[in-house]
């Protein structure tokens, strides 16, 4: 499937669709073109790996896709909502309801138990739901990642792999349109990393749409499709198809 050929014809099926996405930064007197016209379509249930050297623009693309950053030019539709033109509050709504983040360094809140960390997005997006309902949904998500027995533990009491599982549960709890994972195994040893990738693959198997940034071809092999960023431009394919 070509990157841009599906535009229009598969609109209804696509979760993410970008058109000439551009992101420029001003660094001192220099203008940095982090994204230089990226066209990307991700369809429902796809598992896409974004690869590229550091500074290639893959993290910037993930931030724009995650509505944490706004493009300088170009368009971005998330499930047919043109999010590139949304105001900050509306973007926060989109982040809360439609996007789940998984970070390299887990980013769990210290002093909050596992289930409290998982229910955090619900507190912002489903604030009207009673805390017992929020807790039940958090427990459901923790069960999905096999950590229901660790629900009351704080991050400092959990291993690296367990922390990332809690983070995955947090990303799942709002049943988002897409999960954006930024080097999800980057801080884990290879065995634990493999466990996490197995879990992500399972979720993908259940129909969850995942976009993952990685520089590791071994990890990228778990994805159904690989795209590579280079100098702010996106191209289909990548090292995952190459022998290693």
């Amino acid at each position, binding site marked *: 499937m070509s990157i841009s050929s599906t535009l229009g014809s598969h609109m209804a099926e696509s979760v993410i669709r970008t058109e000439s996405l551009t992101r420029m930064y001003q660094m001192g007197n220099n203008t940095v073109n982090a994204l230089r016209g990226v066209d990307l379509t991700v369809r429902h249930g796809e598992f896409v790996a974004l690869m590229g050297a550091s500074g290639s623009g893959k993290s910037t693309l993930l931030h724009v896709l995650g509505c*944490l950053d706004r493009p300088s030019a170009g368009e971005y539709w998330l499930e047919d909502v043109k999010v590139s033109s949304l105001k900050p509050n509306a973007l926060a709504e989109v982040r809360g309801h439609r996007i789940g983040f998984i970070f390299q360094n887990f980013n769990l809140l210290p002093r909050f138990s596992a289930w409290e960390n998982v229910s955090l997005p619900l507190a912002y997006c489903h604030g009207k739901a009673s805390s017992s309902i929020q807790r039940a949904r958090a427990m459901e998500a923790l069960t999905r990642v096999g950590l229901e027995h660790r629900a009351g533990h704080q991050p400092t009491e959990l291993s690296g792999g367990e922390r990332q599982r809690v983070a995955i549960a947090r990303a799942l709890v709002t049943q988002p349109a897409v999960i954006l994972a930024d080097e999800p195994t980057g801080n884990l040893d290879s065995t634990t990393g493999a466990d996490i990738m197995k879990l992500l693959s399972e979720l993908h198997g259940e129909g969850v749409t995942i976009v993952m940034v990685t520089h590791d071809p071994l990890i990228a092999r778990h994805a159904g499709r690989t795209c590579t960023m280079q100098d702010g431009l996106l191209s289909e394919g990548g090292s995952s198809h190459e022998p290693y």
Partner: protein
Amino acid sequence: MSLINLIRSAFRSVAANKLRALLTMLGVVIGVASVIAMLALGNGARAAVNSTFQFLGANQIQLGQRSSMQEGQFKPMGQKLTYLDGLNMPDVVPLVEHVEMSVGKTIRARFSRNTVEIAASGVTADALENLNNQKVQPTNWPTGEPFTSLDFIGEGRFFTQEEVLTGAPVCVLGHQTALDLFAGDNPVGETIWVERTRCLVIGVLAELESTDAQNRYKSDPNQALMMPISTMIKTLFDEEPSVYMTVHIRDAERIDEAKQQISSYLRERHQIQKDETGIYLDDFDMTTRKDILGQQQEAARTFSLLLAAMATVSLVVGGIGIMNVMLVSVTERTREIGVRLAVGAKQKDIVSQFLLEAILISLSGSLVGIVTGVLVIPLAASLNNGVALLLPGSIPLAFGVALLTGVLFGLYPALRAARLDPIEALRYE
């Protein structure tokens, strides 16, 4: 985020750094405690002034000889205010209804072998009417039941206007004085010695008690010997004494006019001159309830200004402490803010979260401050002649001011937190 969640979250964050929160509260604690204590002092002083001067009716003017500070002590100025000044006043000054007069002297009284040394007073025939207003009542009098000046008489009668005018050698004894001199026998009709003068006892006062809880002078109303003022001046003073007067005027509304009339009357009698700037060199002082209230309000205003300045300084210092700690907290929790923004927090959620934490610190501080302030009141009272009274309104006031401090000084750190770039915040190490 729901308010309950926000409050819970604020409690948790503040509790995570207990010592820091406690130290931050200190400024607010001191500020609020001083507000409570100072308002109590002001309130107590006001209550004391009110109760002390309650006897002065709206239609009454106190009149006494003026004194001035000379060589470190008060000395009377000009001519004395005499019995005749008072006696003639109602005839000459149109607005004056009558003049109550008194002089006092410590004397020795004797009957048979019993002797007492006592502060005797020479008064006019209406003296008992004024007892009514001096927080004195017959002992065991039913609460709320009205009483007249006749109820103050235990045996016999009080002296008449006629006896005052003629200087009759009669006297009325206080309950205790009668017991001391006559050991239970009825004194009425007996003659006692007052210094070297024989004096017929015509009445004994009922046993009296003070109704003033703050009776600061601890005087016993039962230790009394009263005689007509003219009799006392004639027989017990070597030279004419200065008389203390309470002038009753006909119309309380025209009290300022009455003061003018009395001034003119006394200036003429005492032949008072003007000084080089055209101001009369009066040798008498007049005080009305309005004057006392005015002075009291003036004092209260000065006091309030002082209080406001002190409260402002300590609360600003407390507020700056809160702002400082909240700024540190925002920096420490940059990553947390990034995570919250990433999972759907809006800017207003972040503002509310940090603002609530600031308010929580200041309200906790105000709570501790209120308790401290209330506990400090007895101490403040002991430094202020026992007068300090908690002003109930000061508690909500202190709470409100602390809330305002929390909002004002918490707003900037909260806005700073909300304006963080989520990407930068997530990368923060």
